[in-house]
Each structure stands twice: as structure tokens, then as C-alpha cells.
């Protein structure tokens, strides 16, 4: 895969192992994440793709008994995100996340988006107003909510809630945005809106997206990784993975013979 147009690296997993107590969920994963590109993680349920995604922002640190081995290098500063010396909070300040099920806080639309800024100590009304508007525009939901920023967020529709969650993540200008099956709880129209948004967002931010929907991976991503039983089976450009996979197991999955 030595191609001359290989883009800059944003992150790279190096020999990453992960354990839920005794059970090993990720096995020796090596994988690049390219800057300002969309990378999709596909694979059958339980293959470890969500586990892998949640390693990037150290979500596993919230629960006892979890253990990492290996590294995730984050560029340009070449930090090892998994190092015990690196504060998970600092990692989460740089890496945003959107969850499987929309999880807006039971607060107003405005406060949902402003939350990340407040956590960073920003309380200036003007700055908050500006950044909230910018984030909502970035998440393509501004026109729908601009007249009711003080409404409660859980009253929005599922698709709007998910775009609000994207705005919440965008408000703090993350370098990398993690999407954990962001459309699995949404109808096809809302799904389409999110996919379009992902396409738009990659101009600004690097995206790593877990999906169990292969068409979605094919539509939105530049690179695709196929995972199976905690291992990275194959990584490559999305076209190549879907048209001419190198590994038999990838091909079986993609053609629907497995999974």
C-alpha cells in the first residue's frame, strides 16, 4: 500500500491489546488513522470495533478492571493516548465522541452544546452564543432549532437529537471525532442526514466511525478496516476493501456469506 498520495497520519494504533478483566477483547491491532479522512470500522457484532473505538478517548477508564497494552499514537505531537501518564480528561478534550443512541442531557438545547465549553471554564455569554451557533451550524441543525434554543433537548426527534450530540462534540473543536454506530437508532431519512454531515465534517476533522451497515461504510468512508474476533483482519482504502479485498474472511463478510 505504498501509494504516493498517502495523507498525513492523525493517529496510529500500535500492537494494541485490550482486556475486560481477564477477557481479551482486542488482539494486537495495528492501524493508521489518516488526517481529515473518514475511516470506517466494520465487522460482525462482538468483533471489538466499539471496544477499539472507545480506546481512543479512554472511555474504558471509567470502569474498573479494564486494561490496555500497546499504544495509540496521536499526531502531530506523537502522544501515546494510552499512556498512564496521559490524563484521560486531556484526551477527551481533544477527541470528541458521538454515541450509538442519542444521549442529549435533560437540559436545554443551548446548554447541551455549551456544556463542553463550560467544562473548559468558558462562561462569557458572547463567546458561548457564538460557539453554540457555529457548532449547531456545523451539525446542520441550526435552522431547525435557532428559534428554540431554550427548549429541552430530549423533546427533539431522534435524528435531531443525534445531530445535537454531534454539535455538542463539535463545539469544542475536537481533532478527532469518534462515531459509535451513530445511526443505528435512526430512521433512513435521519440516517441520510447524518451521513451527509459526516461527509461535510471531514473537511474540518478526522473521523473514525463504527458501523454495522456496510453500505454506510461504503458511502461515507475513505478507508475501511474489517475486524473479526478482536483482530484487525484487513485495512485499506474503502474502494479496495469493497471491490477487491485481499483477505478471504473480509470477502466473506462483505459479500454476506458471513456475519
Amino acid at each position: 500500500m505504498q501509494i504516493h498520495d498517502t495523507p498525513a497520519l492523525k493517529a496510529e494504533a500500535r500492537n494494541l491489546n485490550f482486556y475486560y478483566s481477564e477477557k481479551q477483547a482486542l488482539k494486537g491491532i495495528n492501524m493508521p488513522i489518516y488526517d481529515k479522512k473518514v475511516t470506517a470500522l466494520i465487522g460482525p457484532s462482538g468483533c471489538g470495533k466499539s471496544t477499539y473505538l472507545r480506546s481512543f478517548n479512554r472511555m474504558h477508564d471509567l470502569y474498573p478492571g479494564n486494561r490496555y497494552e500497546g499504544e495509540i499514537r496521536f499526531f502531530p505531537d506523537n502522544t501515546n493516548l494510552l499512556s498512564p501518564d496521559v490524563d484521560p480528561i486531556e484526551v477527551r478534550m481533544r477527541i470528541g465522541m458521538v454515541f450509538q443512541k442519542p444521549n442529549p442531557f435533560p437540559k436545554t438545547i443551548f446548554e447541551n452544546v455549551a456544556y463542553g465549553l463550560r467544562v473548559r471554564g468558558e462562561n462569557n455569554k458572547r463567546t458561548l452564543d457564538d460557539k453554540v451557533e457555529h457548532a449547531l451550524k456545523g451539525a446542520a441543525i441550526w435552522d431547525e432549532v435557532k428559534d428554540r434554543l431554550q427548549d429541552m433537548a430530549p423533546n427533539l426527534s431522534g435524528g435531531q437529537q443525534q445531530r445535537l450530540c454531534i454539535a455538542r462534540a463539535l463545539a469544542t473543536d475536537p481533532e478527532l471525532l469518534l462515531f459509535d454506530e451513530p445511526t443505528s437508532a435512526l430512521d433512513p431519512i435521519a440516517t441520510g442526514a447524518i451521513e451527509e454531515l459526516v461527509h461535510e465534517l471531514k473537511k474540518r476533522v478526522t473521523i473514525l466511525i463504527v458501523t454495522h451497515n456496510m453500505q454506510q461504510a461504503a458511502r461515507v468512508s475513505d478507508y475501511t478496516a474489517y475486524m473479526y474476533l478482536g483482530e484487525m483482519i484487513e485495512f485499506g482504502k474503502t474502494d479496495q476493501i469493497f471491490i477487491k479485498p485481499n483477505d478471504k474472511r473480509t470477502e466473506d463478510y462483505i459479500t454476506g456469506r458471513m456475519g
Partner: protein
Amino acid sequence: MKPLTTEQIRAVIAKGKFRDNLFKAVGVFCLAFALLVIVALIADMLIKGSERFTLDFFLNFASRRATQAGILSAWVGSLLVMLVTALAAVPLGVAAGLYLEEYAKRNWITNIIEINITNLAAVPSIVYGLLALGIFVYQFGFGQSILSAGLTLALLILPIIIVATREAIRAIPAMIREGSMAVGATRWQTCRYHIVPYAMPGILTGVIIGLARAIGETAPIITIGALTFIAFLPPVPFSEIDGGATAGMFDWVMSPFTVMPIQIFNWTSRPDPAFEVNAAAAGFVLMAMVLSMNAVAIYLRYKMRKNIKW
């Protein structure tokens, strides 16, 4: 097995329905019984004590003559003791519950603490009274004061508040917590902006249940030595007291006191039957205090829950 005929199917359904109705009848009976008991109790006190429901009854101190005796020192005492109890128990209980749910690592120490809290809830209240007599009254030198009583009852209801807090926190979905942490919040920020506000309706319910329990407690208050006959009120902050001095902000907490249940107990143990009327009337007032606390709790919970959903 042969398929059932229509008649047989109907017979099976009829049997099932009969049992349904039987259980329904039993259930209604049990419910009616429980309801009847409380209504009868309240009505009995109301009728027996009806001739005492005058303004004087609320504004008079205790007296040797039943018709002139009132509950002023008792209801003021009860309210002030509750105030101290709430101020001590709520921050302690909520903080303890929050710590156990959000911060504590799961290990044998936390397990022991948890078992302990459960056991504390089962300790007879008189034992708290003995403990308080030794510690608050004598060791700390608080004496037989509102402060001693308030702290004693605070200990008594602490387990209730801790358990209620933990349950309210556990009802918050993990995805809310994760959503907060994912934007870079610390544990404390997550607690302050999300966990505590969203758990508030549940916490409040626990607090009121605890206070309703505390306001009716007699044994520990007698143990620490509340007076049964008291003809003055605790000093109002910054008011003039005997000798021209001014009462301090917190002088009232060190004042002797009595509370409603003790006043009632005192009246029922008098030989003169006229005091039974006072006891019934005071009992009704105490009941009204507890029920109105519950009503406030239900209203607040309803109001707060309206805006919290996920």
C-alpha cells in the same frame, strides 16, 4: 394430545377468570383494610381532640390545666429539631451516597461500608439515643439541647438518605454519564452538572421520608433528656434576652426544648382524662405535619421530574 374443543377452551378461560377476580377481590380488601385503619386513626384523633382546635392550643405553652395547655413549645421544638436534622443529614447523606456511587472503587472496604449502612438502618432508635447521650450530650457538651436532638435524629435518618441517594443515582443511564465524560468533564463536573440535579427528585423523596420518620421519633429524644414541661421558646436570633443581652445567631440550638411526640406522650400518661383530649388533638397535628411533608415531597418530585427524561 387431542386439540381442545371450544367448550373446553371456554371452561379453561372461565377458571382463569374466576381466579383473576378472586385475587382482585382479595387485593381490594387488603387495600381497603389498610386505608380504613389510617382513616379511623385520624378520624378518632380528630373527633376526640376537636374541642382543642383553637388558636390558643397552638399558641399556649404546656399547663397543669388541660384546657389551657397548648403545643407551642412542642411544635416550635419539632420544627427547629427538624431544621438541624435536615441541615446535618442531607449534606452528609447525599455526599456519602454520591461518593459510594460515583467515586468509590469496588473493593472489600466499600463492601463493608455498604453492609454497615444497611445495618445502621436496622439499629433500634433507642440505641441511637444512648449513643447520642454519651457523645453529643456529655462528651461534646451540647447538653439536652435542640442541637443534640437534631444530630441524633440526623444519625437515625442518615442511612435512609444515603440509600435513597444511591438509588436515585443508579437510575441515571450510563450513557448520560459517558456523554458528560466524553466532552472532557471531570467526575466532579459530571456530578455537579448532571448526576446531582437529575437525582434530586429521588434524593428529595428520601429526605422527606427520613424527616417524616424523624419527626415522630420519641425514644431517642427522651433518652437524651428532652424536657416534658417547658414554658419558653428558644431565643430568636438577635432578640433581647434576660438581662438586656442580645441573643446570638445560633443561641437557639443550645436551648432546652420539647417536641410533639414527647408532648403527646406526656399528656397520655397523666391521670386526668382531660389531657387525653389534648393528646388526641396534638396527635392529629403531628399527623397533619407528616402528611403535609409528604405532600410537599410528592409535589416537588412531580415538578422536577417533568423536565428530566432520556
